[in-house]
């Protein structure tokens, strides 16, 4: 590629354009209606898709029930919804329960606090995603934002009533577990990956290998169980570490083991000459790692890294087995209310949309990032 540029500069050669199809019609013709078989398949599939979409619109929008009346003692009268079951969606369940689903058993009057926490998290993701904020100050922003999150959730200062974490639930729990899990798990993963490749420190290397293999060898559920049930047994009497914190630490350790292997893949893919050139220039180990090795290794593994991030975002829902109420669990709790018991489809679709929003944002962002970083790095 490099050659052509210098040759092209010295000898201008007239170039021809590659033949291109003309417009949408040509595209349709080549891709959908090229032969009679493909025309038939196109028409048949088109019909099926159309029917599904129309049925969905009917159910979700046209025949849907948006509100239900309430009896004098505040119980929802869901007879209208029962009447259209199967024909129209009953979104009234979401209208009635969205605050329980999003914020769990957090005191009703204080739910503006977890709401702000959710917004802070989303803002934090957005700021971190923008490359112009990729500087040292970003670490301070994170520390500041996470401190504010802690203050808002716990309260106890600035005349905010204390809300202990056994009352937390819903989306904030999911975001807290995922964000802290990855924010602490990722740096730990980088250290473990570097340790595992260390040639000069065999003890560190062994420790890293044992850690990764132990954690990878067991299901997340059992790690969570250990953190919640077994771990307190080993603590001296009177010392009690908070349940949420224990779950959080379990998730951090679990995520770090997986991410470490992803990062190690990137380290291995980097040509040896890069580290040698850095050595030859006299850069110290940490400068070599920070300036040369990691920036290249990490961008090589953006796709599997984001894959793991997305996986962990959803795996946080497993904390339900140790009695924490994350978003998914709160959906179940909402459905335990007798009038709404039969409207699980609506609730689960809503939950799915929330999960999709976060995961799709992550995957789109990673694709953009790959393109952007790849542009400066063609070899």
């Amino acid at each position, binding site marked *: 590629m*490099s*050659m052509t540029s210098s040759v092209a500069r010295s000898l201008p050669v007239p170039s021809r354009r590659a033949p291109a199809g003309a417009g949408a019609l040509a595209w349709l013709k080549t891709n959908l209606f090229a032969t009679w078989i493909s025309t038939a398949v196109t028409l048949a599939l088109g019909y099926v898709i159309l029917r599904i979409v129309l049925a969905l619109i009917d159910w979700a929008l046209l025949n849907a029930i948006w509100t239900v009346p309430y009896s004098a003692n505040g119980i929802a009268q869901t007879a209208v919804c029962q009447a259209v079951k199967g024909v129209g969606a009953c979104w009234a369940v979401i209208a009635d329960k969205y605050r329980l689903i999003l914020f769990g058993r957090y005191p009703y009057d204080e739910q503006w606090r977890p709401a702000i926490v959710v917004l802070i998290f989303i803002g934090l993701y957005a700021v971190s995603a923008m490359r112009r904020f990729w500087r040292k100050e970003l670490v301070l922003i994170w520390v500041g934002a996470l401190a504010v999150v802690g203050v808002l959730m716990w309260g106890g200062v600035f005349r905010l009533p204390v809300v202990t974490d056994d009352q937390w639930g819903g989306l904030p729990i999911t975001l807290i577990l995922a964000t802290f899990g990855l924010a602490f798990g990722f740096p730990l993963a980088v250290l473990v990956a570097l340790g595992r490749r260390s040639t000069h420190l065999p003890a560190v290397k062994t420790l890293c290998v044992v850690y990764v293999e132990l954690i990878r060898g067991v299901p997340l559920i059992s790690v969570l169980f250990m953190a919640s049930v077994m771990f307190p047994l080993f603590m001296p009497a009177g010392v009690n570490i908070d349940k949420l914190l224990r779950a959080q630490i379990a998730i951090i350790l679990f995520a770090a083991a997986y991410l470490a292997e992803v990062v190690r893949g990137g380290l291995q893919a980097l040509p040896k*000459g890069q580290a040698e050139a850095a050595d030859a220039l006299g*850069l110290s180990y940490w*400068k070599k790692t920070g300036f040369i090795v990691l920036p290249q290794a990490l961008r090589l593994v953006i796709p599997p890294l984001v894959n793991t991030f997305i996986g962990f975002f959803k795996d946080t829902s497993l904390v339900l087995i140790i009695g924490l109420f994350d978003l998914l669990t709160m959906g179940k709790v909402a459905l335990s209310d007798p009038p709404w018991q039969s409207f699980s489809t609506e609730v689960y679709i809503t939950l799915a949309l929330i999960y999709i929003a976060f995961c799709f944002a992550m995957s789109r962002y990673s694709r953009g990032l790959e393109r952007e970083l790849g542009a400066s790095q063609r070899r």
Partner: protein
Amino acid sequence: MSQTVTGKAAITLDKVNKWYGALHVLRDISLTIGERERVVVCGPSGSGKSTMIRCINRLETHQAGRIFVEETELTDDTRALDTIRREVGMVFQSFNLFPHLTILENCTLAPIWVRKMPKAQAEELAMTYLERVKIPEQAKKYPGQLSGGQQQRVAIARALCMQPKVMLFDEPTSALDPEMIKEVLDTMIGLAESGMTMVCVTHEMGFARQVAHRVVFMDRGEIVESGPPGQIFENPQTDRLKLFLSQILRGH
């Protein structure tokens, strides 16, 4: 062109030995390179010539014998190693530019972080050397946008930005397309004229003749012959060197 070589030793190898497992790749290598001396190392592939110069800045570790750069001995002591790597520049066969950094950043990284030079001064220095290798206009580009010859010239400038006392070249033209070899060799000849101490592993015999004070011929991990280029090329003493010369001459 011949310059006087001062009596002081820049690099001393004393009975250096190295093994890869059971394979004895360096056998009792003893070699003293004077200040401002230019030495070309040649030999068939697998003769240990790259391994030898990679031992000088400890990209490879030797297992027996001693290596000195000026008065500093190369040992496990990291302090000594840092000192040596600051003073010894290296140019690789595969360039090894940092693809995620611009040409200018490639050149200023080590001066800023190893020599603790202010950024402005480092950039000024980098531009001086990029001008010397005749590509200042590429400073803002990334390595991937440059030709192989240009990349290797940047790699030379990058090493020079550390203002080393010794430059090591490990087959600097072997990965280049034929039409780009000359531009790199010209840069190296320019560098030689400035009086830099150079150790160069290469098969470019024209370059050796023009620039080297001394040619060292290695085979099977040992130094077989060494002497001025005229003597080595016109009057080889050993059969191994005669064979090697006949092979590379046939190849050219």
